[in-house]
């Protein structure tokens, strides 16, 4: 008989949508011709989506298997709050996902702007490592500085995309409303701006006003689903040529 706790951990609307999105994107990705699968326009969103769904499910697993979560927390030195699984979200969401999103936005920029994203990625990785090695920000608890840094970098990268949109000749001849890069960047912009304050003050909110904390957390989940849908559409864009235009800076051999 299936443990009812499995359903509690993995059966929320959020996880079901994410899992369906992953299955759909796997199907779509492997339906793509080989040369398109080798192109970052398609494999990068697929990689981000896989990463996102896998760590969300892993997060659900840590809630299901408390002993495992407790052991990891103890290994990291957190014996005070064994219920926390922030260590997972700190590494996968606040650090790796930020870098992956920066790479995704970078793929839509003209070469002259790509160097700014490269520098952002280098500095983000170095600063995040220094902050964690020096224990200024612990891995198992809130990391407001690393999150703020990553979110600001994503917002700046989105800004760079919009600058390219209004200055680059190739973007100027296209209709942004038919570009998936435009929608994905817009959703990222909303995701990071709407969750910015609540993410930085997450623990405080849960302590002072748990109802509001949960409500704001739900905003993050809704934005997460919207972003995942955008990623699925990016992978499916090769089949939706009537709905969406090809990216203006698309290179077939990338």
């Amino acid at each position, binding site marked *: 008989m299936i443990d009812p706790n499995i359903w509690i951990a993995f059966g929320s609307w959020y996880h079901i949508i994410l899992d369906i999105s992953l299955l759909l994107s796997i199907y779509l990705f492997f339906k793509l011709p080989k040369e398109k699968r080798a192109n970052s326009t398609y494999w990068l969103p697929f990689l981000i989506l896989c990463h996102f769904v896998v760590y969300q499910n892993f997060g659900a697993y840590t809630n299901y298997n408390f002993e495992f979560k407790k052991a990891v927390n103890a290994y990291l030195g957190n014996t005070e709050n064994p219920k926390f699984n922030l260590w997972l979200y700190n590494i996968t969401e606040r650090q790796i996902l930020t870098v992956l999103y920066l790479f995704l936005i970078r793929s839509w920029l003209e070469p002259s702007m790509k160097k700014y994203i490269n520098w952002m990625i280098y500095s983000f990785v170095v600063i995040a490592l220094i902050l964690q090695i020096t224990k200024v920000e612990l891995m198992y608890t809130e990391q407001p500085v690393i999150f703020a840094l990553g979110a600001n970098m994503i917002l700046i990268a989105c800004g760079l995309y919009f600058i390219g949109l209004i200055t680059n000749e190739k*973007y100027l001849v296209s209709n942004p409303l038919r570009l998936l890069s435009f929608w994905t960047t817009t959703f990222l912009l909303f995701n990071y701006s709407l969750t910015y304050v609540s993410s930085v*003050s997450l623990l405080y909110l849960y302590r002072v006003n748990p109802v509001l904390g949960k409500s704001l957390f739900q905003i993050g989940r809704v934005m997460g689903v919207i972003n995942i849908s955008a990623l699925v559409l990016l992978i499916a864009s090769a089949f939706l040529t009537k709905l969406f235009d090809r990216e203006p800076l698309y290179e077939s051999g990338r």
Partner: protein
Amino acid sequence: MNPADNQIYIIIFSTLFLGGLMSTFVVAMVFIHRQRQAQNRQKMDQMRAEFEKTIRNVEHEIHQETLTQVGRELHDNIGQLLSLTKLNLNSPKPEKQTEGREYLDKIIKEVRALSKTLNLDWLESVSLDDFIRQQLEKIQSTGFCQTALESDGSYLELSKDQKLVLIRVIQECLNNAIKHAQPDRIDIRIAKNNQSRRIEIQDDGAGFDPSKASTGSGMFNLKKRMETIGGKFYLTSEVGKGTHITLELPF
């Protein structure tokens, strides 16, 4: 209201403010994009009109140049041949009459060749290298100066418009050299590098001061023409030291 409530209100307000700010930003960007798109479209239309005008002018000039050449040929070559034919045919000697008939054949060939140059279809069949070679041979055959062409064939593949503009620009450069520079030698070199292909026209004539306004406008026209086909025009010259012109076209 306790401080915790205040902070919660600040969090909610900041979240809403950031959301509103981002919405305004995205809407503003779409609006600016639309505006710039319209400006860009206008600019493109203007450029296209300018390009078409340049091509029309170039075609007209090549036509004029061809007509001048045809007139010269009719007067200097065919006219002479016809006089000779008349003289020979009027002669009672049979060998002279045979010679006269040979001249007639030659005249027919010359007229056929001339008639072909009257429309611009010859441009399609001739390569840029062949055109330059013919122009240089013509200059050399007049005894005006020595010429040489060195080519790696990098201009063999060109669109009709590009070829038309290049032919006119080269023609103009050579005319300028003959009219104003009195050179002993004109050298043309065609070569390519990784990004572009180049035509270098070098003469050892009188040279001039390119900064003078009287010479500047002609050069400006040539530069503009090269720009309409996505190319570049460079000129260096010094009084007494000849002129060096580079025409550059990306791949």
